[in-house]
């Protein structure tokens, strides 16, 4: 039931057939998807699939060909070494927005969708939730049952506390032994330079990093009228003001903040995506995949 919440039939229909393509060469052995630097690496047989032109002929099951006069490719349980780590921000600032476009909910949906995609192409997916401290950590696995663990974990997670992206990145850097794909889903409300320095560090460790910056549209436009009492979601501070009178000033600040992240990430070779939570999840994932396919 819980999985159906995040992966309903319409989303699944959209996600079927899509592939996440790692831009970097990872230490995988799976044929066709990821170019692996290691040779002759093989694990337990899993199943056959029909041969299509372009498939590596080394994995053709000749015995089966002799019996059936058809080409089949042998597939194995661990046919790739790509490990994806999804870091999901569960701080208090993520709990913004209505039920439809709540940032944390959107992040959870996004996490499940991406996990499904990775698992569908036999990649391993792990999850790390964090606030100002490390939350739950699920090591990468490549079975579909693993998705249930991820979903269960997400269901149990609630937003609270401040944001500690650097701490989470530091924790992950210590955990990962081989190069992998790190997807950060967060609103990035943290000390910007600290976050960027940790991202830069992970990048130098040859990890591919994808930053999915969740932004609620209200955070850009500040559409409130009249007198509004703003409170800090992670502290007890509050501010009573007239949004009409600070909108212009605020907009310039938030734009420069977001653009600074974007510019720095591009400069460091980090894949940065601004995700607006008022868009549908399907559109967001499709747009993300399409963008990735260009590489």
């Amino acid at each position, binding site marked *: 039931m819980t999985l159906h919440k995040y992966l309903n039939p319409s989303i699944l229909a959209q996600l079927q057939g899509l592939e996440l393509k790692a831009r970097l060469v990872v230490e995988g052995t799976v044929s066709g998807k990821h170019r692996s630097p290691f040779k002759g690496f093989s694990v337990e047989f899993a199943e056959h699939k029909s041969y299509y032109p372009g498939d590596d002929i080394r994995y053709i099951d000749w015995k089966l060909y002799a019996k059936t006069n058809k080409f089949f490719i042998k597939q194995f349980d661990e046919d790739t070494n790509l490990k994806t780590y999804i870091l999901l921000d569960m701080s208090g600032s993520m*709990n*913004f927005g209505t039920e439809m476009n709540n940032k944390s909910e959107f992040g959870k949906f996004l996490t499940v969708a991406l996990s499904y995609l990775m698992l569908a192409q036999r990649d391993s997916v792990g999850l790390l939730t964090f606030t100002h401290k490390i939350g739950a950590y699920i090591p990468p696995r490549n079975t579909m049952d693993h998705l249930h663990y991820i979903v269960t974990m997400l269901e149990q997670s609630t937003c609270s506390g401040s944001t500690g992206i650097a701490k989470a990145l530091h924790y992950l850097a210590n955990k990962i032994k081989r190069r992998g794909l790190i997807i950060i889903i967060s*609103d990035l409300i943290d000390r910007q330079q600290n976050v960027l320095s940790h991202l830069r560090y992970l990048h130098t460790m040859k990890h591919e990093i994808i930053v999915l910056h969740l932004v609620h549209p209200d955070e850009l436009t500040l559409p409130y009228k009249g*007198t509004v009492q703003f*409170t800090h979601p992670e*502290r007890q501070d509050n*501010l009573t003001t007239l949004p*009409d*009178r600070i909108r212009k*000033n605020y907009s310039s600040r938030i734009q420069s903040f977001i653009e600074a992240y974007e510019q720095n990430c591009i400069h460091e070779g980090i894949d940065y995506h601004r995700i607006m939570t008022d868009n549908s999840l399907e559109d967001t994932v499709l747009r993300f995949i399409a963008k990735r396919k260009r590489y």
Partner: protein
Amino acid sequence: MFFLNFWYFWFIPLCAVPFLLNLWKRRRTISVAFPYFSFLMESQIRNVAFFKILNLLLLILRIACIFLLIVFMARPIVRHASATGGAHTELPTVFILDNSLSMSVPFEQSSPFKESQVQIEQDILSFNRDTPCAFITMNEFGNLMIVESRGIPERLLNALKNTAPVPYKFDIHRSIQAADIFLKNLPDSPKNIFLYTDNQKSNWVNTDPIYLHRTHTLRFVSPDTLAGAGGIGWIGISDTPSITIQSKRSSINPVIQNFGSDEPIEYICTFSIDNESVANTYEKSAPNSTSNIVLQYKAPLDKKFLKACFSFNYPDFSIDNRLFAVIPVYPMPRLFIAGDDTSALYLENALHLYFSDSGASAVPPIYRISTDQAPAVSINATDIVFYCASAPNTSPPDWIKRIAANGTAITVFYQPDNVSVHHPSTSIGSINFAHPLFASYTLMGREAFEDITCSPHSGSLFLSDISQRIPLLTTLKDTPFMEELNFYSGRFFILYTDAAGITSNLVLSNIFLPLLHTLIDYSLTLSSHPPSYFTRNIGSKINIEDDKPFSVFWNQHNGESYTLHSVFMSGKYRIDTFPVPAPGFYTLQKDAEESLFAFNIPAAEGDLHPLNSSAIQERFPDNPPVFSLLEEHSEKNLGWGKLGALQLLAFLCIAASLLELIIANTGG
């Protein structure tokens, strides 16, 4: 300061709307847990206290805007201190506004009605609020209405503003009586009546003298648009302890008023019998002139009295413009032709010929008598006599004198003794078109008589006892050719020609028979004849008179007496007076009653001598009346008037709105 539209202050609670909105906005302050809180803090340049002060200022400005708007709509009036200083302004006053249609006649981009409205408004504004005042005018149904101030002069001003000219005759008599009744209930102190009217004569006809027991000042105001032509009718005043008559360009006017303009009055008079129109005429009365309405019709033979109705297309009578009258119908006259020569024979044939072709419903009997038989013939005042004197004669026969003195009209064809009989040597030089006999030739002018030749004469008087001689036709050599002579109560019409066409071709011309007809008709309408003399059944021109004409005697202080005759005019009756040279008090005697008569007119021709001030004071030794001219109204009395107050309010309102806009769109 007071307000013309005081009821607008019922909207004062609207001033609370901005305050309530402010409270409502405060109560619905929302609380938002905002992720980028630090940016909000950095964006907030001004502190919250600043915005609170700013909001308070905006709130005050919005309330001020609404309040100023309400005050503006209420039309404030700021009265200058000097405006209340006038002695008369403290007196209870009744304003009477004549709102008949004649007051709305345009004049130099205004009208008497509009001018009166302005003047009354200024008067009211100059009064103290507590001064008892009333306003009297006609409502839309033509009924008099009275509005009392009761300490709120805005009532009068609103009633004044809502008053419009109505198509009814304004009953000044009743309005003044109503004003007097209003003043009756007030404490015994001097009281005023200000009457604004163009004062058509029709307002005063058939009204008794007005008795004002409680009025101390009666002011007749002819608006400026009536300059030079405004007129006060007449009013009888008596039993008044002290009274001041004020007037401005007003007069007792002996002529038909033309709404104060110099243009002539134009109206159509329709005469109907038993709801059937039998005659109508178009009348044009020149300014300062008297008009008698003349109609042509044929009356039925079988009626002794006609119930007739006259309708006038006249501004003051556009709704009920009927005047019912009873016209007597009497037997036809007899025509007698006295003479022994061919002139008489010729005249008899001419009359027979004329009446046979006239189409008249009845032809009067025509009798020819010789001069020898004439004294024996019974001729009464209702008959008409044509007398042909063929030989020079300086004195008429006794029978002619006798019947003329009895009131009979006599037309004489008289051959001068010193002219060359067969050689007419001159023609008609001038025609008296003002006379009813020749009024119908006015449009044709002298051309109607240019073919007439006649013989001049040095003529001797036909009669020695004539009281008045009116030339009707005069030759080019300035000798009379036709005259009207008043002889006691009778009338002679002398034609210096024979009836056979020897000394003049008049009787042979095509104008002779119509002239003869007109002469007969005119003879019937002579005022010297008793009413029973008149007949209408031969169809002709008549002067219409009502069934109850009346006259009064005007007694001057010096003992001289004049008779004032009632004359029919566009309304009903009016008193036809003669011009009076100066303002003053006079006595008016009617039906053995004598009353004081007050008027004021500009200098005009006439020989009536008014009472001077000392004579007036002699009549009121205890409390002598005061005669004064009305003071000119001027804008300066208003001081800082409503216009200035409205402008200031409008400016403040706009300034407050602009300030609110500026503050609301800046700051922060």
